[in-house]
């Protein structure tokens, strides 16, 4: 019976792991298996109860009995007592009478759903100290790959792990390595993409800054797998701290013989250097990135030939993202099955997200793949930042991605499920929007970005994004016409189908998804000349609802234009001629008495006249 099940949770917090909780968990599992108790005793990992000095900590349900200082040899005794309905007093931890008021990480939703694999050293080590990286098992994965495994075994391990590229497209990393490993050439290259061009994304920067050796180690392993002897990390020059720390990591690793000739006595050579990117979005695209390293203007070229055959300087080349590489060392250390123990069948492991926008907990989080979007936003992210505001949509994948609305929040976060919504997993930017965001303006913002960043090679992208931007600008400024939505969709299809690289192929996504999920907003902008969020200034006016206004005067004092008048405790009024639509009153009013109405310029007679022109 399910409620007879004894649940043994071994703490997987970093403190308990350091104290040996991994061996403790294995001991419990072995004991349960050897005694044939699989049906009555379940063993898993649990969160931190905030009793770290007592580690390894084990919790047993039912009863929530806490054990501390548990050693592998204690497993049998603990299981034995609980099977009898008892408790093992020798190791029982009695929490203090007056428990601390500080919540434990295991109790806070922000931490409860997170598992740190990529960010395993987050905040724990000095990023500029190679010794501290090594203290936390750093370079052990590389040592195993170089001294105990063949290149084929390294490729097979990464392939079996199910790791997919974290740069956006989710291409299987092991497969990419396999292609390149089979290419025969006098020189091969291994590159790292640290360009991170998506507005709102900062995962890769954080990894490079906080744990630069994890990228270096992942690259050493990759170089072994494909037989590359030279590597380059391409980082945008706007990330000076990342560049500094990566350079120090490379220098220290080289001095220690972890880079250079005959690494760890294995006979494998690998030299690593940094190339500074100038911050063009298109240079994040793989073929453009390679041209940029060659000193040419960063422009994509057609594939084939694929970089695995002809890449940098026409030699076989593999390019992977920063987070992809940071995933690799523990895969080598703990094995492919370990990696697959989190995530879904087709999207293994964890994903790092940069949560930003209208969310309470802005920051960097790492969660198992397959977790519902709702859990990330409402639990990990703490929900919408501003009180009284409702969630509207979340933009995933930046300018190449799309928005996901409220009714799809139960979507599992994995590559394929996110693709099905019209957005993409992307590299991990998650921009959350509340009801104050205008979706047409959002699409315009991203189109402005892609139109600027289009390298100009393919006319559908260069001209098409510009035409779309003009249409969106017209719509947000009151010049939208019936049929504009259809025209937009039409151009989107053309750009998608005829652009050479991912920039053009994905540029329409923000427009397509906002039309798909928020078509009513496009329609009210076009037909009613009304932006209900008041973001499009030409399509809105702010008015005080006299029924709701209490006359508290907060808005009047806050108004920079002194445009709000009224007697104390009587309903106030906005003098429309003075109002500059700065939204201050709207944000300040505690009673939601400020209403967003159609534009004063375009209402009534004016609107009729305007409408008549079309």
């Amino acid at each position: 019976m399910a409620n007879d099940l004894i649940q043994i949770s071994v703490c997987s917090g970093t403190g308990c792991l350091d104290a040996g909780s991994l061996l403790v968990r294995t001991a419990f599992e072995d004991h349960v298996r050897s005694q044939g108790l699989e049906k009555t005793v379940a063993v898993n990992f649990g969160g931190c109860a905030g009793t770290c000095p007592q580690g390894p900590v084990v919790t047993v349900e039912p009863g929530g009995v806490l054990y501390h200082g548990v050693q592998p040899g204690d497993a049998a005794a603990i299981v034995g007592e609980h099977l009898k309905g008892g408790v093992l007093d020798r190791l029982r931890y009695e929490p203090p009478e007056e428990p601390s008021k500080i919540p434990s990480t295991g109790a806070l939703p922000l931490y409860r759903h997170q598992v740190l694999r990529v960010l395993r050293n987050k905040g724990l080590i000095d990023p500029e100290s190679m010794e501290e990286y090594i203290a936390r098992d750093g370079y052990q994965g590389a040592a195993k790959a170089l001294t105990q495994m063949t290149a084929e075994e390294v490729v097979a391990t990464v392939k079996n792990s199910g790791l997919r590229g974290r740069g956006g497209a989710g291409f299987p990393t092991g497969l990419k390595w396999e292609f390149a490993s089979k290419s025969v050439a006098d020189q091969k290259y291994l590159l790292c993409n640290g360009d991170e061009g998506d507005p709102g994304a900062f995962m890769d920067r954080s990894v490079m800054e906080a744990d630069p050796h994890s990228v270096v180690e992942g690259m050493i392993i990759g170089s072994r797998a494909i037989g590359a002897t030279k590597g380059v990390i391409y980082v945008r020059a706007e990330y000076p701290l990342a560049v500094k720390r990566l350079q120090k990591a490379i220098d220290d690793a080289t001095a220690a013989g972890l880079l250079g000739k005959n690494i760890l006595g294995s006979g494998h050579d690998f030299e690593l250097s940094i190339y500074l990117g100038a911050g063009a979005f298109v240079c994040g695209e793989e073929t453009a990135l390679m041209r940029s390293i060659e000193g040419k203007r960063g422009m994509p070229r057609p594939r084939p030939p694929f970089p695995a055959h002809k890449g940098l300087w026409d030699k076989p080349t593999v390019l992977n993202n920063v987070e992809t590489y940071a995933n690799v060392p523990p895969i080598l250390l703990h094995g492919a099955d370990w990696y697959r123990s989190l995530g879904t069948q087709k999207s293994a492991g964890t994903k790092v997200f940069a949560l930003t926008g209208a969310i309470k907990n802005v920051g960097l989080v790492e969660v198992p793949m397959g977790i519902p979007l709702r859990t990330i936003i409402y639990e990990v992210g703490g929900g919408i930042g501003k009180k009284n505001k409702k969630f509207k949509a979340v933009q995933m994948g930046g300018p190449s991605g799309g928005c996901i609305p409220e009714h799809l929040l139960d979507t599992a976060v994995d590559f394929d499920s996110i693709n099905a919504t019209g957005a993409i997993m992307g590299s991990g930017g998650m921009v959350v929007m509340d009801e104050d965001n205008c979706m047409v303006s959002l699409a315009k913002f991203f189109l402005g970005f892609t139109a600027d960043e289009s390298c100009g090679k393919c006319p559908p992208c260069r001209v098409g994004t510009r035409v779309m931007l003009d249409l969106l600008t017209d719509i947000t400024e009151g010049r939208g016409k019936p049929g504009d939505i259809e025209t937009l969709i039409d151009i989107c299809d053309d750009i998608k189908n005829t652009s050479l690289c991912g920039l053009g192929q994905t540029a329409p996504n923000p427009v397509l998804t906002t039309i798909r999920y928020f078509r009513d907003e496009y329609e009210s902008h076009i037909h009613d000349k009304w932006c209900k969020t008041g973001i499009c200034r030409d399509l809105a006016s702010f008015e005080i609802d006299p029924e709701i206004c209490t006359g508290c005067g907060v808005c009047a004092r806050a108004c920079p234009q002194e445009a709000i008048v009224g007697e104390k405790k009587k309903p106030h009024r906005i003098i429309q001629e003075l109002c500059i639509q700065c939204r201050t009153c709207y944000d300040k009013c505690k009673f939601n008495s400020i209403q967003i109405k159609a534009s004063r310029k375009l209402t009534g007679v004016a609107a009729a006249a305007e409408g008549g022109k079309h």
Partner: protein
Amino acid sequence: MSKLTAEDLVRLRDKARAAMDFEKQGYRGKVVMHTGTCGIAAGAEKVMAVLTAELKERNVTDLVVTTSGCAGICSREPLMTVQLKGQSPVKYTELTEAKVKSIVEEHLVGGQPVEKLAFVMGCEAAY
């Protein structure tokens, strides 16, 4: 540094582990200031200066004071983690000069975590 072998790496790991363990090094605790770009932008370096000045003034020399990367809660920077012997690590967020002074007085010197200023206690799940 001379060129490492795989065996050296294991020895180096064990040595480095011991070196990172403040208790083994004879210290009473460890204070980590999180100085990623986000932390620095929010003023972590200024807060760090206040911290070191306060500790110096009080002649506290039995704590390891160090820096590390972003701890993930960027909207609540500047941020520091304090761990004293026998206690779980405690994170303090949105640090100001005044907060740092009370944390030094009550936690670092007095030994008691400042409950009203602390954000969270314990470790994050890994593996």
